């Protein structure tokens, strides 16, 4: 009942100055719309750019690196145990990069509930022979079906598909730039030399484009058994196991665990791609900064309008106080006005922001490096809308606070005497 009365008074004051109120609300609307659309666009871009890398990269990678023996002879001498060891005489031997028991590891991983999937890989360097020139390149031996399932391989194919690797014996998929350099097209046969000096001829069944030039210039894919043949290894030879997890944030912990269990090296995605997180973070930060800056400007608008209103309404405030309304009541009246401006402007801002997002989402965005993208990427995360309305209310309350306090402190005697 009491609050209802205060609300009625706020509403009457607000209606009496509806034009200014509308301008103040429009400021909030503008800034919230800006905030929503900017954040939606920026994070849409983030998701896209992250996806460019993160979708293609395993969350955990198991491999075996060649390095000097961990146990040097000097460590075995009890007398030197507490000393610093300078002598490390046992050098790296020509150990195998093979992951032992790879089949057992893959079976184990496929049954682990933390793991979405695991796929074997063999990576080897080759020289692509192009007339007199040899181009250094890398052939990745993959399991085409699994690769497609876990890393959306086909999304990056511009002709052919991953499945063709298993259908066609001795086949290869080349990066677009590499294929251009080799003047090779689908259906043609290329020649390559392995590091051991053996020469092979493989048929090109597809081309891919990842959007990363450096990658497309050197990479090629063949099925696991083709690469095993290139290296002259048996069917159990695997150098990499790529794992995708249900929860990417678990990657560092899981990597450590797997390294112990399987006695291999393990690298997690966060360590391997730290720079992408930084990029995403900066883009998000910029969006928030711009949104909040605009909102603060709108806050000053509200502050001004409330101040002006209070200046105009001195008589009203004096009468309210003389007839028994307390300073607190008067303060609530003006805070409510600020709140209405914030809520109304904010809600309209959410709508406008959504509208702008939808429009941006329709604008064509065609780039050869991203074959699956046709329009600008936009993120409609409801979280932004929540933050938007909370921000608009917080800003208006903050902007309304000082003027409302001023109104509550108005001395009716000064006003009545001054007339």
């Amino acid at each position: 009942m009491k609050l209802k009365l205060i609300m009625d008074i706020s509403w009457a004051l607000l209606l009496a100055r509806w034009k200014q109120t509308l301008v103040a609300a429009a400021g909030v609307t503008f800034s919230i719309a800006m905030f929503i659309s900017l954040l939606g666009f920026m994070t849409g871009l983030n998701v896209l750019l992250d996806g460019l890398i993160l979708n293609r990269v395993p969350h955990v990678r198991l491999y075996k690196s060649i390095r000097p023996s961990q146990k040097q002879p000097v460590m075995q001498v009890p007398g030197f145990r507490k000393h610093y060891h300078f002598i490390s005489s046992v050098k790296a031997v020509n150990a195998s990069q093979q992951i032992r028991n790879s089949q057992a590891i893959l079976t184990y991983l496929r049954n682990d509930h933390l793991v979405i999937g695991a796929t074997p890989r063999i990576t080897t360097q080759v020289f692509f022979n192009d007339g007199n020139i040899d181009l250094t390149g890398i052939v990745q031996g993959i399991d085409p079906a699994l690769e497609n399932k876990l890393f959306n391989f086909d999304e990056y194919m511009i002709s052919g598909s991953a499945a063709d690797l298993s259908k066609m014996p001795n086949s290869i998929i080349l990066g677009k730039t590499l294929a251009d350099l080799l003047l090779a097209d689908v259906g043609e046969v290329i020649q390559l030399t392995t590091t051991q000096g053996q020469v092979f001829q493989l048929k090109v069944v597809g081309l891919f484009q990842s959007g990363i030039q450096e990658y497309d210039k050197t990479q090629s894919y063949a099925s696991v058994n083709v690469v095993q043949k290139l290296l002259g290894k048996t069917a159990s030879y695997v150098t990499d196991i790529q794992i995708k997890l249900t929860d990417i944030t678990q990657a560092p912990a899981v990597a450590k665990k797997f390294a112990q269990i399987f006695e291999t090296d393990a690298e997690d995605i966060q360590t391997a791609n730290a720079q992408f997180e930084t990029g995403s973070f900066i883009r998000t930060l910029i969006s928030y900064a711009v949104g909040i800056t605009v909102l603060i400007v709108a806050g000053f608008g509200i502050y001004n309008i409330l101040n002006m209103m209070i200046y105009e309404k001195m008589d009203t405030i004096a009468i309210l106080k003389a007839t028994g309304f307390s300073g607190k009541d008067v303060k609530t009246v003006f805070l409510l006005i600020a709140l209405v401006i914030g809520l109304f402007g904010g809600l309209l801002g959410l709508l406008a922001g959504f509208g702008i997002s939808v429009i941006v989402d329709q604008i064509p965005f065609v780039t050869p490096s991203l074959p699956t993208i046709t329009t600008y990427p936009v993120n409609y995360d409801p979280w932004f809308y929540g933050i938007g309305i909370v921000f608009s209310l917080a800003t208006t309350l903050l902007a309304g606070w000082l003027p409302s306090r001023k109104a509550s402190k108005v001395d009716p005697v000064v006003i009545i005497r001054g007339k």
Partner: protein
Amino acid sequence: MMEKIVLAARHISKEFADPLRVKVLSDVCFEIKAGEFVSVTGKSGCGKSTLLYILSTMDTVYEGELWIDGQLMKNRKEEQLAQVRNEKIGFVFQFHYLLKEFTVLQNVMLPGLKLNKYSKQEVEHRAMEKLTMLGIGDLALKNANHVSGGEKQRIAIARALINDPMIIMGDEPTGNLDKKNSELVFEIFKRLAEEYNQTMLIVTHDTSFARKTSRNIEMEDGQIINDIAVTDLV
């Protein structure tokens, strides 16, 4: 039976320090009993308004004691004083302060709604009654800004009456009205005194007005120099 003391001023003094230290009120003492119709007169600048603002609890910076309805007003919170004004005091200013954003009826209702003693319907009914009693019931739904000065002052009186206050205070309520309207407003005060036994304290410089009240307090340089029942005056 002794009449109840509605308001008592005990040794009230006030000085302004700005621009010079001037004592505006010195040692003002008097009591108002229920049903009295008191006028306060004196030359311009003698401290009448200042006294009235203190008595109405709006001004809290003074020395001495103010008792309203048997309660001391010293050291009370702003909110409590607002409550006292709302419930026990009706105020009529020289300039007819109405809220422009509301209708006549709403203006009269506001202090009643704030008091929150009656339902909205009852407050509205009571407000209508007061307006009708003052002969301006037909203005109820007009915007408060669209009525004449004399009408505004009568609306202000209706507003002062809405919570059945113990005392009505007025600071030159006829000071800004023409002769006809002044007389109309005075007739209303007289009726309130005679028919409703309403306690009133009205500041005025209109001696003919003062002569018709039941008691006159005369001030000079912040002091009471005369406090007499008006029947003696004739």
